[in-house]
């Protein structure tokens, strides 16, 4: 797809066309609650914005442990939110390249250059990468989900230059129980570059610039707690009627008028929009408004 995930801007356009307003640079600090009902939000700058409904697209931990005061929530709900597992496990390395890397193992002009590439040739290698993660380290020999999007869409880089996107596993939210340091981040990047260079001679010389995102950066930049890209682990105990927490799997929360619509909710993460769509349907139901205008969705499960 050309423009990559930029297509979400089309969604933004549609929101505006439907009469919505988007404000950027408007970090929410708190959800305003009066008598157990959400009345609006307070922005980081102190501005108060009132609304009939508040729908949080932030993860369940961020929403209920940071934006909502403890006293507004039942103990059992708080306990379950605290127990929600949202440990990050991946990182991202975006690499600007001077020229297209070569992979001698591929025939020249192989369509694989435009494909999703992996170097992981055995399950044992993946498993060992996970052992490092369990021990609180990034994987010394990570597995990469690697693409060169400029082979499909040359407009993403200056003429002749390329961009490589590496999704990397595993990267824990903390290193040996402490926060990531810049040196850790560089070590993590090096494990990625070293692996690519093993399969692509001269790779290091082509690197013009690199952007490294460990769970630390992901949390700081995107606001995902512990850098978990799915806003919560997709294990059985956190799926279906247990997502995000038992008793609140239907986008509602213990606070009246406060809803959840992010990947922390059913069915989970990935760029699919299903949690948002389902949340909208539930909200319309609570408002006793019709949902006929919603286009049909595919069943997820």
């Amino acid at each position: 797809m050309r423009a990559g995930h930029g297509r979400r801007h089309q969604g933004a356009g549609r929101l505006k066309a439907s009469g919505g307003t988007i404000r950027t640079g408007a970090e929410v600090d708190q959800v305003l609650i009066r008598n157990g009902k959400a009345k609006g939000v307070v922005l980081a700058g102190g501005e108060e914005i009132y609304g009939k409904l508040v729908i949080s697209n932030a993860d369940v931990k961020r929403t209920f442990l940071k934006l909502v005061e403890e006293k507004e929530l039942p103990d059992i709900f708080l306990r379950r939110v605290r127990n929600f597992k949202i440990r990050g496990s991946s990182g991202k390395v975006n690499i600007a390249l001077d020229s297209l890397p070569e992979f001698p193992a591929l025939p020249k002009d192989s369509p694989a250059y435009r494909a999703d590439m992996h170097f992981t040739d055995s399950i044992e290698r993946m498993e060992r990468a996970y052992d490092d993660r369990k021990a609180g380290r990034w994987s010394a020999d990570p597995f990469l989900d690697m693409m060169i999007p400029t082979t499909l869409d040359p407009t993403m880089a200056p003429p002749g230059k390329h961009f490589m996107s590496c999704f990397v596993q595993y990267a824990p939210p903390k290193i040996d129980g402490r926060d990531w340091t810049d040196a850790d981040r560089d070590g993590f990047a090096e494990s990625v570059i070293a692996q690519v260079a093993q399969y692509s001679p001269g790779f290091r010389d082509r690197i013009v610039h690199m952007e490294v995102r460990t769970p630390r950066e992901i949390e700081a930049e995107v606001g995902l707690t512990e850098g978990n890209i799915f806003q919560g682990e997709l294990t059985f105990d956190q799926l279906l009627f247990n997502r995000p927490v038992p008793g609140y799997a239907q986008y509602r929360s213990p606070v009246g008028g406060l809803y959840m619509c992010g990947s922390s909710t059913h069915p989970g993460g990935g760029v699919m929009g299903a949690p948002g769509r389902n949340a909208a349907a539930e909200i319309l139901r609570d408002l006793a408004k019709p949902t006929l205008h919603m286009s049909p969705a595919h069943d997820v499960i």
Partner: protein
Amino acid sequence: MTSSDLNWDAIVIGGGHNGLVAAATLARSGRAVLLLEAGNEVGGAARTEEFAPGFRVSTVAHLLNRLHPDVVKTLELERHGLTVEHGDFMPSVALSKDGPLTLHGAYGEVLTGASPSEQSAWKDLRAQLLRYAGVLKPFLSRRPPGLGGMSLAEMTGLGQTALALKRLGKEDMRDFLRVLLMNVYDLLDEQLSDDRLKGLLAFDATLGSHLGPRSPTSLLGLYYRLSGEIGGLAGAQVQPKGGMGAVVAAIRAAADKASVSVRPASPVAKVIVEKGRAVGVVTQGGETLRAKAVISAINPATTILELVGSREVDTGFVRKVKNIRMKGDAAKLHLALDRPPQFTGVDAADHKGRLVAAPSPDHVERAFNPSKYGEFSPEPVMEITLPSLADPSLAPSGACVLSAVVQYAPYALREGWATGKPRFLKAIMAQLETYAPGIGATVRHFELLTPADIEARYRMPGGHWHHGELQADQMLMSRPVSGWSGYDTPLEGLFLAGAGSHPGGGISGAPGFNAARHIIAMRA
């Protein structure tokens, strides 16, 4: 007239404890039952054997924690010499360099050696675990639910489970459903903080399986353990006087009383199949024995692939049987010691308990990692008992027997057990030495059984004491294989009754008992 001319009602293959339970139960219904045991003694993996001159030990299973109450009652095992009293319950001691922690009574009715807050957290968690295991417990004595064409009794059984869930109350039921398939590591992290206690529980959850505490669904292993009961108390454990062989002796006595004909040293070569029906067996000695029903209480894969043969059953079924995972990870160590060892910080009474060397869940996880790659744990985890302290008849006067289950020792060790075994023994002894300094110097004789040894000696493929990994995909209606979980096989007249069938391994007698009751109910 020779036995060949007799038409038996039932022939039971395998004189392990499940085979004996099945045979005794069938015989009590008036059937003429012949039990064929390959070895010279019945008892299978529940035997007490001499491993060094004057030293005897329960060579595979060394603790009794789940002999099913229906088996005890129906076979009147107490009348046949099996007695358990509350005072016999063994404590579980979590060994650690920080000093031990002890679970007393039935799985920690009282916890000592931990902080008051941890004791209170344990009280809550223990109650919760027993409650949840209690919901699952009735499944032990039933055939697994079928997926279609359920009988009224099966429907009623499931209905009772639904009711039991409902009785938990809304919030507790929600937690039950949330944690059911969780890994034990995460659950312990939610509720406890003492690594020693968490290590012991993580060990118990993964004992006998190819799972680490952080592997998905590892909590099920703890539920399985806690669904067992002894003397009416869930989670309790005892060492029978005379070793596990005494339990077998009681079941054997019940079988004798019910007039089961037991023939040791009679390995079966083949199950005779005529027109899709099992009609008897041929022994390795060449003798043909015919029966209305053949009940195999040995390994399901051995039964189908070797005794029946793949040409007698459909390919799909054969494929499923071949796919049963059953490579064991547990080794068994027996030491003949000059004198009782002294475990640091452990008092005299607790030496008679179960000593668990698994100081933290992370330690157990690290021990598990190499087994994924066919390597043994450099710092193994283990469950140690000193059975001769409570039963001096097991060792010469003043000497001591040590019996330990040690993980992880992968069946298919990459380097091979010929060179691996002495290295593994060294790793085990190094661990033992840290908890009981000086123990190494008192070793008079040792026996280390790797899964490969257990396979060869006890005819247990993969050396796996459950005869098939006890994991979610090989439990209930998927045990031993999906579609054939109710002790039946595609061959009419052939039934499975060993640990490879539901509910699984351990000295419970449940698979043998359930199979026999099923056969009696269907009048086979």
